[in-house]
């Protein structure tokens, strides 16, 4: 059995609607797993079940072969970092970090040693006597992390810990979190709605929607081969085309045109989807696969490229084009959907 196991978890506040429904999640020791999804998808609820704030109406939580489902929060020994950091405003940085150790009845010298050690690891040396309101966002974040890590928790839970930081600091902090997590080898669950953040940091990603995990896989696999339409949309796929299966690699669109794809699927009527940046703008004479002709309706400037909405017989297709060659509204263009880039969901 895996180190961390959520088995068939249901959570319901009113006994009618389930916030989480039949949720299963396995995590190996030392892995960093992200829960990714839009707000209201149940990712924070899942984290709160793990932390012990919410008791599931059904299912079990097993950690290291011990049933934790009914263990109260304060006996779980998990480190939790909140979105708001939740530092104790009336305690200094040192006392904030030492709080958990004092409760464990660790000796004074040992507390001093361990707090100093973790403050050094978190790059907070010299801040021991400061109070939370005298710190910047990034420093508070690191104190919260140090406070959670100093007790050597069995599990580190991070609830959108980077969302209150500015863009640059966010990237630094996520590298920092990854480095600490690796160094201490601590099993970690990271909740976020930011896919870039989550892909860069995680060993595995669980994409959640409506209280269930839609896909649980490595970041690369999720990025390249989403399994459901929801996951595809959430990680930047657009252009969903209704198809009918002809054979494993050939599919027929609604206007009768044929699409060839590298990765087929078993479904009889799947949807073919592709990212706007993977579509190539070609000339009408080119002999290429999966060619569609359409008319530009909207052009949007994205910086390094332009995005066009094309009106085609298959509906609106969104395409990114280079900024070297700019198309105008009402221009007729041909695009090719490379067969290796089409994903069937």
């Amino acid at each position: 059995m895996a180190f961390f196991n959520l088995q068939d978890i249901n959570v319901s506040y009113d006994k009618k609607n389930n916030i989480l429904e039949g949720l299963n999640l396995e995590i190996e020791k030392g892995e960093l797993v992200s829960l990714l999804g839009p707000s209201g998808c149940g990712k924070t609820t899942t984290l709160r079940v793990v932390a012990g704030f919410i008791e599931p109406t059904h299912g079990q939580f097993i950690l290291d072969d011990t049933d934790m489902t009914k263990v109260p929060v304060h006996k779980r020994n998990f480190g939790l970092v909140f979105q708001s950091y939740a530092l104790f405003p009336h305690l200094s940085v040192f006392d904030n970090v030492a709080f958990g150790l004092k409760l464990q009845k660790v000796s004074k010298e040992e507390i001093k040693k361990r707090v100093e050690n973790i403050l050094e690891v978190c790059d907070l040396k010299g801040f021991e006597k400061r109070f939370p309101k005298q710190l910047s966002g990034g420093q508070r974040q690191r104190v919260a992390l140090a406070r959670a890590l100093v007790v050597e928790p069995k599990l580190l839970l991070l609830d959108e810990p980077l969302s209150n930081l500015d863009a640059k600091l966010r990237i630094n902090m996520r590298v920092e979190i990854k480095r600490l997590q690796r160094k201490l080898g601590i099993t970690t669950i990271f909740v976020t709605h930011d896919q870039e953040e989550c892909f860069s940091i995680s060993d595995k990603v669980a994409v959640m929607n409506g209280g269930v995990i839609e896909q649980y896989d490595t970041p690369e696999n999720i990025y390249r081969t989403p399994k459901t339409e929801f996951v595809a949309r959430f990680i930047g796929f657009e252009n969903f085309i209704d198809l009918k299966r002809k054979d494993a690699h050939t599919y027929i669109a609604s206007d009768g045109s044929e699409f060839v794809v590298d990765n087929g699927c078993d479904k009889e009527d799947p949807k073919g989807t592709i990212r706007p940046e993977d579509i190539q703008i070609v000339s009408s004479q080119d002999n290429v696969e999966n060619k569609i002709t359409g008319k530009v309706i909207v052009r949007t400037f994205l910086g390094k490229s332009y995005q066009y909405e094309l009106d085609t017989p298959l509906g609106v297709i969104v395409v990114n084009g280079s900024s070297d060659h700019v198309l105008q509204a009402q221009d007729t263009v041909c695009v090719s959907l490379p067969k290796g880039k089409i994903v069937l969901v």
Partner: protein
Amino acid sequence: MRKNRFLGVWTVLVFAFLLLPLVIVTITAFGEANVVQFPIQGFTFKWFGKALSSNSFMSACFYSLRLALVATLLALLVGIPGAYALARYSIKGKQLIKSFFLSPTIVPGTVLGFALFQVIVVQLQIPYDIGLLFGHFLIVLPYVIRIVGSSLEQFDFSIEEAAWTLGCGKIKTFFTIVLPNITSGISSAFLLAFINSFNNVPVSMFLIGPGTTTLPATLMGYLESGYDPTVPAFSVLMMLATIGIMFVVEKTLGIAALSK
């Protein structure tokens, strides 16, 4: 410019209206005549001596202080956990409970006093001092719940949850994490509750009995029978005490803490 001058004059008038009675009371306390008069004739401190040596005044004063202290402490004991529960958990009919706790400040004191008199004194025949204490507890409880409640509303409860995850039990967390962060609310609640109990007349009037007379009731009773400057003198002493308390509060907490 003209508008500003008008505003300035208006402000002075309002302050004069508020302060003049206090000034007059203070002056009359020094008059030599046996009745309160203004302007005064002669100048003496004797009424202060009489006020301080008056058995009924002093014992009523200490009784009122004791009553206010016990009623306030009781209200804090009940009100703080109540306010915590109201702020922390989504309880059904939360607004209704909140308005219920506010009601003693809306219902006229005489109505509340008469109702308590009917139940406590007439029906249940509870001893006077306990009845009076209960009445005052009811008067001050809303202040505690509202003021502590509003400081709990600004409290980030994830701080409490953070303490739980670090191995701190719920009750211990309440004392070591929640309470230290709402101290300004608690001290404001204490002061307002204490002052309201100490000053209360309408509820006390129905619930006082032999040996359990509050200071405001004694002062009013004294004014009905005689009209010498002992009462103004005693009022001056109380004003001085209030100024002293306010000074200490300002130095330690800041007056702003009271209006939060």
